[in-house]
């Protein structure tokens, strides 16, 4: 069975701290790994990673994939209260059908205290 495991499940930090969120996966036919931010409703796309060792960066957020050890991390530096959300990791698999559904982890609930 394909598995995506995120840790920690919840995390409370103070504004200005740096956080690292983890995502490990055990899947067949890996294609890509995606990170989403879920605030109230819709998951909002952050990053897509397909190659090992190449860091993707957007402002204070960055992410990297290790395909040998089967994990990814999402870093957020100088956290702000607006970063409070559930961060979802999802893996896309090759299905052969062309439109591949994503397999999600349970998410990390991040709370930033002022």
């Amino acid at each position, binding site marked *: 069975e394909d598995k995506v495991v995120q840790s920690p499940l919840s995390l409370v930090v103070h504004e200005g701290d740096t956080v690292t969120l983890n995502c490990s996966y055990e899947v067949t036919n890996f*294609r*890509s790994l*995606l990170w*989403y931010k879920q605030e109230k*409703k*819709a*998951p*909002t*796309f952050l990053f*897509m990673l*397909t190659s090992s060792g190449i860091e993707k960066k957007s402002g204070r957020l960055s992410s990297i994939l290790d395909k040998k050890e089967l994990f990814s991390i999402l870093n957020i530096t100088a956290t702000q209260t607006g970063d409070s959300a559930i961060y*979802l990791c*999802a893996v*896309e698999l*090759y*299905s052969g*059908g*062309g*439109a*591949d*559904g*994503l*397999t*999600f*982890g*349970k*998410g990390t609930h991040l709370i930033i205290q002022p």
Partner: protein
Amino acid sequence: EPEVTQTPSHQVTQMGQEVILRCVPISNHLYFYWYRQILGQKVEFLVSFYNNEISEKSEIFDDQFSVERPDGSNFTLKIRSTKLEDSAMYFCASSEGGGSYEQYFGPGTRLTVT
């Protein structure tokens, strides 16, 4: 910025009734998806759709579910005879391409079956 829209935002129905959830994907996207999230649980893939047919479906997507693209803009999910356990948030997503393309999610429809 283009976005996926969904209607209604909240639907309440009685057990055994049929419901249709509607989505308008991003206009130049060709691949469409439905996911659901039962309260407190993971986001789960239901089905993907491309070129007017189902591309991939999960075990959850049984005979009571169907999808359709009735015109050039809408994408619908029909649940024929709702059960209590169908209560969930249903997300529509779309992507430009079928593999290693970001999937963009709509705001969701909260379905409550009583």
